[in-house]
């Protein structure tokens, strides 16, 4: 294995000091001269015809600069299926539908103006469960599709289907079977920084928008389309991404509030900022989708899985975001977590009058792994096999091709399972008297990009200056996860300079090369792959130019050195002859000849060489650009086949819990997490990712649910939407990283951003089952649900 200079060493994050000192600029901090504040009037009904919108009082309020509705502004259509509008004209389909917006000189006036807008509705019957909405003859939520063709049902026109092997043969071969129906709630991403943007037009009608996005380049495309809709043909959008207080998938789509800010900015000719309050973020922003998964699995006498059958129904809400493609990711564990010869998978998405949903960390994988790994324990129970042994029997292996056509390169699942079993003292059962139990669950996730768009690429520009500094322009989004830290390390390692000489420039679509988006745990994988490509190109150029310039400069060094050290005899080494490109190396910002004697004068600071290149006649400055598209495939999701990622990440988590049988409270005593990360890039940053993901996974398992009644969010605040705090994370967490040194991974690394929360909920659920014999099948596993189930169990036993 290669020895790395910086990779794998603890390095502090370049963005940390500014963030810790409160100096980083988030959307919330941005100010522009003449800036106005935008505010949105949301619907008062979950499903209704809009009869009339009266904005006259709002318009007359002093300090209001514009009031817009669908009636006085251009129609802007958007969304993954283009089924959404910035402002709604004919009807509302959810409580958060945008009906009108104002721009005012301060936020309080904007809020007051919103209260003055009166809307008349004609209420329509609402559909709040997908099963209700799927029934024949249900009222239509969308009467037509985006092309204007009439629709006949509430199904979202997206197909996710997979069949492999022989299902009926698999069922016949099964000695044991287990079936379960599992559901997951809508949960909120809970970014520390709420959603917001700032839109501004120049006098040529080109747009600049500071956006909280994870897809600046796809957003540019979306916004340019909106400019066309507004009659601004051939005008351009420049997307700038400031410091972001978390993304977690909320930035994978463009949002109505962004189009509204654009419309208001155009109407007023002034910069317009819209920032959601926490309550707005909860009530009017898209959470994770809720789903129900019916799963059946079977195994033979030997414990080997013979089949897996999965039906998913997903509540899409009223409009369609990229989140509707969750099943594309669900298909991955369904077909490829543990070896299973026959698989049936089908997912249906249904429009309802609930809040429409969007992406969140894990993107369908936590939902599906929750069902799959809970059901694995159920099947192990049926077969009378220990859940750990059962997983080992069915464990994935390196170099296998799975039923979905995933081409596995490296796979550390076995090591992950073994590590968790060992650290959790698996075979030593918990003390039953205390209602303690242990559980585990594993995961597979994309670790080498994730192609869900025609390009999965990422670009990088490196620009060197006279001082040996490296300026990087990259299209990936730093949203708090530490991307700039690994990109810095990757560039420093691959190029051979010190990390503090690397500067990552702000993300701006006008200066940075294209990138599909920071999602699918691809940030570090892509960034470091581009870093290696770009560094190699620069090194080639530097070494080529060194053939002529290195001897010249070294000659000068030698003269000076002799002057200082009279009597010095240089070693017998012909550096002019040795100055061949293939013999040079660059390390820690110093250029030298690999096989040369280590003399102080016989190496050059990179800055000095760059100045020599710059200031000679016909001088040059060095810069390079690269574009990396990973070797993976855009799967055919209707057929459920295709190698979506160039490598896959694995992991296993284990938990030991104690249940209070009088209150239903679950106390986590300890957790173990073993993840196949390919290679650790920056240890503290990686640990941060996993600790954070675990906390989010524990919230998903035990506490979090965006509650709603007839489409209305009931707990739109942190008072009643509970996430774990440090006080819930009061137990030891034992992390272990399995390094499989993947050949596709930069320095061997795989993506790690999402995996940390994927198996957390089923690991905890399995531990609860082990402790008290209760299996809760709908998340979150609240203390109330446990107590009710215990009571039922007691009644059944009495």
């Amino acid at each position: 294995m290669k020895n790395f200079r910086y990779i794998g060493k603890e390095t502090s994050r370049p963005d940390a000091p500014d963030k810790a000192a409160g100096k980083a600029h988030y959307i919330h901090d941005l100010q522009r001269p003449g800036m106005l504040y935008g505010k949105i009037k949301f619907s008062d009904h979950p499903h209704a015809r809009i009869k009339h919108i009266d904005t006259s009082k709002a318009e007359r309020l002093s300090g209001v600069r514009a009031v817009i509705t669908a009636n006085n502004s251009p129609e802007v259509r958007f969304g993954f299926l283009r089924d959404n509008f910035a402002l709604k004209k004919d009807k509302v389909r959810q409580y958060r539908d945008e009906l009108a917006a104002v721009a005012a000189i301060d936020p309080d006036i904007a809020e007051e103006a919103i209260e003055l807008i009166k809307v008349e509705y004609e209420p329509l019957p609402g559909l709040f469960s997908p099963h209700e909405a799927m029934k024949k003859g249900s009222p239509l939520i969308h009467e037509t599709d985006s092309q204007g063709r009439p629709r006949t049902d509430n199904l979202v026109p997206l197909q996710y289907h997979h069949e492999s092997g022989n299902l009926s043969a698999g069922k016949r071969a099964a000695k044991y079977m287990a079936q379960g129906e599992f559901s997951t709630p809508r949960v909120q991403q809970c970014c520390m920084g709420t959603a917001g943007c700032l839109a501004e037009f120049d006098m040529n009608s080109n747009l600049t928008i500071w956006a909280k996005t994870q897809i600046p380049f796809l957003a540019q495309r979306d916004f340019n389309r909106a400019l066309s809709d507004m009659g601004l043909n051939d005008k351009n959008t420049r997307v700038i991404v400031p410091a972001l207080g978390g993304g977690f998938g909320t930035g994978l789509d463009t949002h109505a509030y962004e189009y509204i800010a654009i419309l208001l900015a155009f109407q007023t000719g002034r910069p317009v900022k819209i920032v959601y309050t926490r309550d707005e973020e909860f009530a009017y922003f898209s959470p994770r989708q809720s789903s129900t998964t019916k799963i059946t699995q079977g195994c033979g006498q030997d414990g080997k899985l013979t089949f897996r059958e999965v039906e998913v129904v997903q509540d899409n809400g009223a409009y369609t975001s990229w989140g509707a493609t969750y099943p594309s990711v669900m298909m991955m564990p369904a077909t490829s977590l543990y070896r299973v010869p026959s698989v049936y998978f089908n997912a249906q998405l249904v429009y309802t009058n609930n809040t429409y949903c969007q992406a969140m960390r894990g993107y369908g994988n936590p939902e599906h792994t929750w069902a799959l790994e809970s059901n694995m324990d159920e099947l192990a129970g049926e077969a009378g096999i220990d859940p750990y042994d059962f997983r080992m029997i069915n464990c994935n292996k390196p170099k296998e091709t799975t039923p979905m056509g995933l081409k596995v390169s490296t796979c550390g699942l076995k090591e992950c399972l073994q590590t968790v079993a060992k650290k959790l003292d698996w075979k030593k059962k918990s003390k039953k008297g205390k209602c303690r139990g242990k559980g585990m669950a594993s995961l597979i996730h994309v670790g080498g990009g994730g192609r869900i768009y025609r390009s999965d690429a990422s670009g990088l520009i490196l620009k060197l200056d006279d001082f040996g500094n490296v300026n990087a322009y990259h299209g990936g989004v730093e949203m708090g996860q530490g991307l700039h830290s690994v990109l810095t390390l990757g560039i420093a390692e691959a190029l051979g300079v010190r990390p503090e000489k690397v500067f990552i420039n702000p993300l701006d679509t006008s200066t940075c090369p294209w990138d599909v988006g920071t999602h699918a745990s691809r940030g570090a994988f892509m960034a470091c792959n581009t870093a290696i490509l770009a560094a190699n190109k620069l090194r080639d150029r530097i070494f080529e130019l060194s053939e002529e310039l290195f001897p010249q400069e070294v000659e000068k060094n030698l003269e000076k050195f002799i002057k200082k050290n009279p009597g010095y005899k240089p070693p017998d080494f012909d550096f002019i002859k040795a100055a061949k490109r293939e013999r040079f190396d660059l390390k820690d910002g110093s250029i030298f000849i690999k096989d040369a004697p280590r003399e102080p004068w016989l190496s050059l600071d990179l800055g000095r060489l760059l100045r020599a290149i710059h200031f000679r006649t016909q001088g040059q400055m060095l810069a390079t650009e690269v574009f990396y598209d990973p070797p993976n495939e855009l799967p055919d999701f209707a057929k459920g086949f295709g190698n979506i990622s160039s490598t896959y990440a694995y992991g296993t988590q284990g938990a030991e819990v104690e249940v209070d049988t009088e209150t239903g409270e679950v106390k986590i005593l300890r957790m173990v997490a073993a993840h196949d990360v390919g290679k650790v890039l920056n240890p503290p940053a990686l640990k941060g990712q996993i600790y954070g993901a675990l906390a989010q996974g524990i919230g998903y398992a035990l506490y979090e649910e965006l509650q709603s009644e007839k489409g209305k969010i009931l707990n739109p605040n942190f008072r009643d939407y509970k996430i774990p705090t440090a006080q819930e994370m009061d137990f030891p967490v034992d992390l272990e990283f399995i390094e499989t040194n993947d050949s596709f991974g930069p320095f061997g690394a795989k993506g790690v951003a999402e995996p940390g929360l994927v198996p957390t909920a089923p690991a905890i659920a399995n531990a609860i089952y082990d402790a008290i014999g209760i299996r809760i099948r709908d998340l979150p596993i609240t203390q109330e649900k446990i107590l009710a189930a215990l009571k039922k169990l007691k009644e059944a036993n009495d």
Partner: protein
Amino acid sequence: MRRFDYFRPKSLKEALELKKTIAGAKFISGGTDLIVQIKNRELKPSALISLRFIPELATIEINGGARIGALVTISDILQHPELGHNYPVLTEAAKSLGSVQIRNVATIGGNLCNCSPCADMALPLLVLEAKVRLQSAKASREVPISKFFKGPGESCLASNEILTDILLNPPHNKAKATFLKKGRVKVDLAIASLALLLEMEGGICRKARIAAGSVAPIPLRLSKVETLLEGAAVSEDLVSKAQHLARETVSPITDVRATEKYRRQIVGVYVKRGLEKILGQSLA
């Protein structure tokens, strides 16, 4: 947020004068409840009169018993050496209130005047049989805390009065008290809570004071359960009866935080656990 005027009087007299002259004005202390209500448009005060700049309201006095000024913050209570020593149940409740940031700002008077059924500080004060002092421009009166709460958001405080002090009796050396609280997570409003004070003599319960939170329109004294326990030897059978009675006595509601059923269940469990904690023995 809606606009309002803001005043910071330096004396009680000035504060009461302002309240009288400005229609629609509200007093504000820590603001951790009030500001949220204003932001949610549940309250639309024309003006806020801050009580934070009236020095005598923010003091603690140990005088055999104790006098706690209404503007004393929850953190102040936790940091006061004698208060915690004399009335440990008060610190138990204070520790459970909100987060550090909230405790640094929230005041004991504000917690009471907000009149929430889940007010954490109300329960220890109920079992300690505290009194509150209510001051108007002309008069001052002392009211037992058990008579203070009238309903959610409602108290016996007149619009021309300020709650100035909380008065505690000297601690009884035989009395032991404890506080239990159930939230969905640790930093939470109580979905059910209980304070319990017991004076034991030779295995017989001489005095019992029990108060429960979030299970009735007001922080509630469970007098029937107290009567059941007083004069009796605490046995498993008695505890089981007390639990049952407690569950019957309360009248919780179902909301986003918990169901009525669950709250009742927890009150019962907490009666038992409170007794166990004080008596140092298992009563299962």
